C-alpha cells in the first residue's frame, strides 16, 4: 500500500465556519474512494484543498509525497481534477480547449496531438470538436471537463460530483471510465448518489459537518445498517400468529413484526441479533410443526447507514464511533 494522498489533521475554516474539521486519512493506488456526505459536509472543500485551489487553515495534505502548500505545481502536475459542475471556457471549442490543457501540461507537437486524440476518443467527443463548448449539451460539457482531467493520465484523479445531472447512459459511461482507470490510480469521487458507490467504489468515507464519521468498504458500511441481517419468514397464513408467539419466546429476540410484502404475502420480520439466524429460528418453528415456506436474509441499505451517520452529525454525535 503506497499512500498517494495523505491528509493529516486537515482543517479549513472560513471565518467562524469550520468546513473541514480535523480530517486524517490516506488513499492508496488502486483505491476508488467514494466521498459521501450531505450538502455542505465539506466534501468539495476537502477536494479543493487536495487539488491546490484552497489552502488549509491547519494540518497538511500531501499528494505523491508533495505538500500541496509548499509544492503546489508539483502536486498539480500529478493530479487530474474535475471541479463541481465541470467549468470550462465556453467560448473555446473542445479542440482548442483540450489543446490548451495539453500545452499547459507540457505536451508539444506529436505528443500533444496524441494526448488530445486519446482523450477525445475515450470520451466520444469527435462529433463536437469544433463547436463552442457553451453551445454543447450538459452531458458533452461534462465530458469535455472529464477529458481535461484525464488528459495527462494522472496518478491521482479527483472528481467533484462527476455524474451529477447526467442522464443514466452518460452516468454509465462515466462509471465505466472510472472503473477502467482504477487499477493504477488513486481516485476520489464525491457524490450523494448512493447507488454510485456500489457501482464504482471499493472504499467509502462518510463525512458530515466537516468530520470524518465512517470509513470502510461498501459492504462493511452496509453491515452497519439497523436492519442488516434481519430475517424475513413466510409461513402458512393461518399459522402466522402461532409462529409469532413461538419466535417471541426465543432468547434475545424482542419483537417480531408482521409486514406485508409488495406481492401481498404476509411476512414475519425478526430484527437482527445473535439468535436471529435462519437455522435457529427455522428449527424452533419446525419443532412446533409450523412449516417455513421461505426465508430471506435482509441486506442493509447504504441509505439507512448514511442517514444514521450523517443525521446525527448535526449535534455532533457519532453512533458508530
Amino acid at each position, binding site marked *: 500500500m503506497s499512500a498517494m494522498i495523505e491528509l493529516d489533521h486537515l482543517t479549513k475554516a472560513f471565518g467562524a465556519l469550520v468546513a473541514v474539521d480535523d480530517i486524517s486519512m490516506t488513499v492508496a493506488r488502486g483505491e476508488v474512494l467514494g466521498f459521501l456526505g450531505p450538502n455542505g459536509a465539506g466534501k468539495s472543500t476537502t477536494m479543493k484543498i487536495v487539488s491546490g485551489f*484552497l*489552502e488549509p487553515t491547519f494540518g497538511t495534505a500531501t499528494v505523491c509525497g508533495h505538500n500541496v502548500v509548499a509544492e503546489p505545481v508539483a502536486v498539480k502536475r500529478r493530479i487530474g481534477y474535475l471541479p463541481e459542475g465541470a467549468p470550462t*471556457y465556453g467560448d*473555446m471549442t473542445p479542440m*482548442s480547449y483540450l489543446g490548451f*490543457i495539453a*500545452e*499547459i*501540461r*507540457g505536451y508539444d507537437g506529436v505528443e500533444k496531438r496524441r494526448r488530445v486524440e486519446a482523450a477525445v476518443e475515450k470520451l466520444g467527443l469527435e462529433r463536437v470538436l469544433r463547436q463552442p463548448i457553451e453551445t454543447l449539451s450538459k452531458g458533452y460539457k461534462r465530458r469535455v471537463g472529464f477529458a481535461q482531467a484525464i488528459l495527462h493520465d494522472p496518478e491521482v484523479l479527483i472528481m467533484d460530483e462527476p455524474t451529477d445531472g447526467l442522464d443514466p447512459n452518460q452516468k454509465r459511461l462515466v462509471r465505466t471510465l472510472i472503473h477502467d482507470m482504477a487499477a493504477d490510480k488513486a481516485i476520489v469521487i464525491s457524490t450523494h448518489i448512493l447507488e454510485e458507490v456500489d457501482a464504482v467504489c471499493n472504499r467509502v468515507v462518510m463525512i458530515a459537518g466537516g468530520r470524518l464519521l465512517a470509513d470502510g468498504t461498501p459492504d462493511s458500511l452496509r453491515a452497519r445498517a439497523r436492519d442488516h441481517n434481519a430475517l424475513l419468514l413466510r409461513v402458512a397464513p393461518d399459522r402466522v400468529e402461532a409462529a409469532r408467539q413461538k419466535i417471541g419466546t426465543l432468547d434475545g429476540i424482542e419483537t417480531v413484526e408482521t409486514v406485508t410484502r409488495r406481492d401481498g404475502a404476509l411476512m414475519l420480520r425478526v430484527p437482527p441479533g445473535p439468535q436471529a439466524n435462519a437455522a435457529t429460528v427455522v428449527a424452533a418453528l419446525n419443532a412446533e410443526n409450523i412449516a417455513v415456506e421461505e426465508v430471506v436474509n435482509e441486506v442493509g441499505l447504504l441509505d439507512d447507514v448514511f442517514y444514521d451517520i450523517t443525521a446525527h452529525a448535526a449535534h455532533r454525535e457519532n453512533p458508530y464511533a
Partner: protein
Amino acid sequence: MRNVWIIIKREIGSYFATPLAYVFIVIFLALSGALAFFIGRFMSREQADLIPFFDYHPWLYLLLIPAIAMRLWAEERKTGTIENLMTLPVSTVEAVIGKFLAAWAFAGLALALTFPIWISVNILGDPDNGVILASYIGSLFMAGAFLAIGSCISALTKNQVIAFIISATVCFLFTMAGLELVLNFFRLWAPDLLVDTIASLSFLTHFNAVTKGVIELRDIIYFISMIAVWLLANVVAVDVRKAA
C-alpha cells in the same frame, strides 16, 4: 515563460472568438478619430502634428481600458473556470502576467490600427515623426498602467460591472491628479512636496511629458513601476482567496 506564452495565446484566442474584440477595436478607432477631428480640431488648427489625437487618449482609455480589464479575473470567478485554471500546473504569477500581456497586446493592436491618422498627417504636412513615435510608445505604456489597475481590481470581485466602475474610478483619480485644477486645490494648503508627489503620480503629467517628444527614463520607469505594483497586488488578490 512557456506557460505565460500558452496563457497569452488562449486569452487572445478568446478575445477573437467572441464579438468583443471587433466591437472594441471599431469603437476605439471611431472614438479616437472623432475626438481628434471634431473636438481636437485636427484639421482646422492647420498644424502638422498629432497632438489633438493623443491629447484625448487618457480620457478614451478611462472608458475603454476598464472594459477590457474587467473580464480578466471576474469572469473566471463567475463561471468557475478559475478553479480549473488555478489547479493546472501554472503559478499565480504566470497566470497574472499572461492575462495582462494578452490584454496589453490587444490594446496595442487597437492602438496600432490608428495608423491611418499618421499617414494622413504625413500626406497633409511634414510632422515630426520622432514625436509621433514617442507619443505612440507613451500611449501604449499608459494603456498598460490602466490595464494593470483594471486587472487587479477585476481579481477582487466576480461582478464585472463592479470591476468596471471601480477600475474606471481609480484610473480617473490617477489621471485627474495631474490637472492644474486639482493641483491648485492642493497648493492652497498643502506643502510643495505633497503637491509634487500627487502630480508625479498622475498619468497626465507623465504622458504629457512623453507626447512633447522627449522620452525620459523617469516617465517610462513611472509607467513600468505602476504596472509592476498593480500586477503584484493582482497576484496577492488572487492568492489571498486561497487562504481565505
